[in-house]
């Protein structure tokens, strides 16, 4: 099995969800998203972020606003639309279900493993 591939598949699956959850907290500038994710030890390239944001915007989940900056031209800040909030709620629900399910499964496995270890010892 290609572990790297699976890893990247898993990460890819939650990527949009992570971004949405950051934007859901309030108006945000794309490079701030990158920073926040880096803090959470998730690395994303800006080159991948921008297309993703544009896709979500075109899907109607996001909207943007031009905010004047102190220096230079105005900057694009992203906010979540009502539609986006609804979608996020659904995703959050799914995520919670999944984490419990995955936790349960992985827990069980490690428990049984521990049990068997104990049995051996």
């Amino acid at each position, binding site marked *: 099995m290609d572990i790297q591939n699976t890893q990247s598949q898993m990460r*890819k699956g939650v990527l949009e969800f992570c971004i949405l959850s950051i934007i859901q907290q309030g108006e945000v500038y794309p490079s701030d998203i990158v920073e926040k994710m880096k803090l959470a030890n998730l*690395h994303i*390239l800006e*080159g991948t972020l921008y*297309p993703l*944001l*544009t896709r979500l915007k075109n899907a109607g989940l996001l909207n943007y606003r031009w905010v004047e900056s102190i220096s*230079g031209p105005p900057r694009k800040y992203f906010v979540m639309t009502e539609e986006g909030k609804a979608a996020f709620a659904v995703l959050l629900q799914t995520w919670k279900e999944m984490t419990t399910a995955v936790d349960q499964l992985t827990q069980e496995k490690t428990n049984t493993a521990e049990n068997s270890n104990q049995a051996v010892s």
Partner: protein
Amino acid sequence: MNKVININFQGRILPIEEQAYEILKQYIESLRVYFENEEGRDEIINDIECRIAELCEDRLKKGTVCIAANDIDLIITSIGRPADFEAQDGFEQSTAATAHNSNDGRQQNAQQNTSGNNNSNFYRDGNRPKRLYRDEQNKVLGGVCSGIANYFVIEPWIVRILWIFLIGVNILAYLILWIAVPSTSIKEVGGVRKRLFRDIDKKVIGGVAAGLSKYFGIQVWIVRILFLIPFIRFVVNFRHMHLFQFWDAPDFPNFLDITFSPGAVFIYIVLWLVLPEAKTSADKLEMVGEKVDLNSIKNTIQNDMEGFSKRAQSWGSDLYNRNKGTNNSNEASESNLEGTATTHNQDANKSSENHRSTENRKGFLYFIGRIITVCIKGFVYFILAIVGISLLAALFGIGVAATALLPLKNFLIEDGAQTWSAIGAILLFVWVPIIGIVTAVIRKFAGLKKANIWVRSSFIALWVLGWVCIFYFGSSLGNSFSRHNLPAEQSIALTNPKIDYVEITAAPKMKYYENNWFQFEPFQGFADEDTVYVRNLRIRIVQSLNDSFQVKIVKLSNGKTVQNANDLANKINFELTQQDSLLYLDRGIGINKIDKFRNQHIIMTIAVPIGKRIKITNKGWSQTNVNINGRGMRTGTIDRISSDENWYDEWNEPWDNESYQYERGVEYKMTKTGLEELRRDRDFKTMEDSDGSSSYDKQEDMSDKEIQLQKLKEEREAIKNDIKKLKEEELQKEKTRVVKVNDLKKDDIGNSNLEKMNKIGKAAGKLSDLQWVLDRFTH
């Protein structure tokens, strides 16, 4: 020292180094290509541009004077290159993952030598198969030869020498490789590397044309038309194929003929098989790659040429040192011998440099040994290559010839199984292996995997089928020719047989097509679509028994059965028309598509009475064989061949044999002992101008010329006398001048001398002219 320019980038004024600007431009171009099929492409790129501008400004605020290439590289790395997007799908798994897995030594070497940053992405993939690159480190001109040498792990100069041997065709090949093969030090800005792919998004058949157009950055329809025009033209009229023929290559198709002919189809098929599809977006990026415009080509070549002149200089100075060295001392010469090794091969230089200081002699022996092994290796490779190439070329020649002959097949091959087996033989027996071999070779060079087992085994199966076809076709065609007719001699009545002189010639104003490429004998010319004319005719000249010319012909043909052969022979329609002394031959034996060519042929016998003359001109029917065995006497009389069956023996006899070479355009006279040569046509006159026939033209006006001769002789005497007088005068004057010479100015002497010399020269010239005229007459 770098030029700094100011750019207005997304509403910000940025001072930026020119080099950095170029990198930035290429990066954005690569993004444009990457996001080509994305819905909000312009918006995404705009956002990224904004971000780059912002980051640049941050740097300027921190106190940087201007944006350097280094800064741009860092910014681009933080945003990510298209190749990174593809590989990581959004997440940087770890910073170490982007680190370049070094491959084999060659690539590592390249990495060390070029500015590391640029190369970082290029060798990202650790499992990359062996591929052909131009070698920037060992190049002389464009690095093509050393790249090939690297590929085969041999010395570069072997390849160079082979290359020089094959000069001519390969100049074009070199240029193509120079442009198309990626260099080891290619700049990887934004991960743009150029490769030829098939573009499946825009395909019509296989996406080859679309891929090519992407590669060269031109419109698709241009490539399509280039592929189609020659093909259409071929279908319409394949005889114009030699339009682009530069030199006379009678049976070998030259390069342009392949390019601008049905070869286009062949090339298309090969490319289709060889080129991978552009599946991932990284592939699509590579497909477009760096822009190939005039400017970039110019830049590449300029850079390379600069390097070339430097290398040439260093080579020159090396040579100079060596010459000096041989004059001076032993030690110097030895070290310089190694100097020559340097010019050939830098690797050798590095390794021998280590040896040099310690063991001079050992290094020298090593060098000699190296040369010997390399020579042997090179020789073997050379022979193998020659054999392989010539085999392929022969196969290709057969293929082209057979394909070109296909329009004529209806005149030879029966419909049904025979036709299908013929087409099968051409396609499967000839073209399938060609395509297979060429494809395999290109795949190998391009570093692609071998075609999978199914492709390979189906190729082999098709070829076996080709063998079956060719055997069936051979035997079936042989069967069609197996029997021959029962010949019967027919007399042709001449309107005026008592004439003194007969000239056999082709009908006037008749076109005879000559094709340099294929001599499809016996198919010489073809007048219209339904009939071709073959000129299978032999002429026997014999002695007539009476005083009139007689002509008899025998029609012969092969066929499946005797009956069939008889029918075909009877259908031969051959006209012979007489106009005064001229006998016009028909244009040929007409072959139509129903009756086919079954080796129809005619033997024509002409009986010439004693004392009368005959000539066969060399117009048109140049292929006609003429038989006058034993000067027309061995055959004796017109009735010599008593049994009709013997005509086939007569036909099969080697005619035009050594006993008496008959020449066309020469007039012959029939004597009791046989034919005798009389007079030649003007074409043959030049060789023997002065003898026999030509001399008696002169006799008529000999008296005039003798008078002229006399006059000329007198003139010559007079001029000789003049010259003598002039010379004497000159001598006398010279004597007197010797005395006066001190008084006279030098200029005067020169002038007067010049005048005198001119006079003498003129006289001498006239004299020699006269002498020449006299010589001609006296001879």
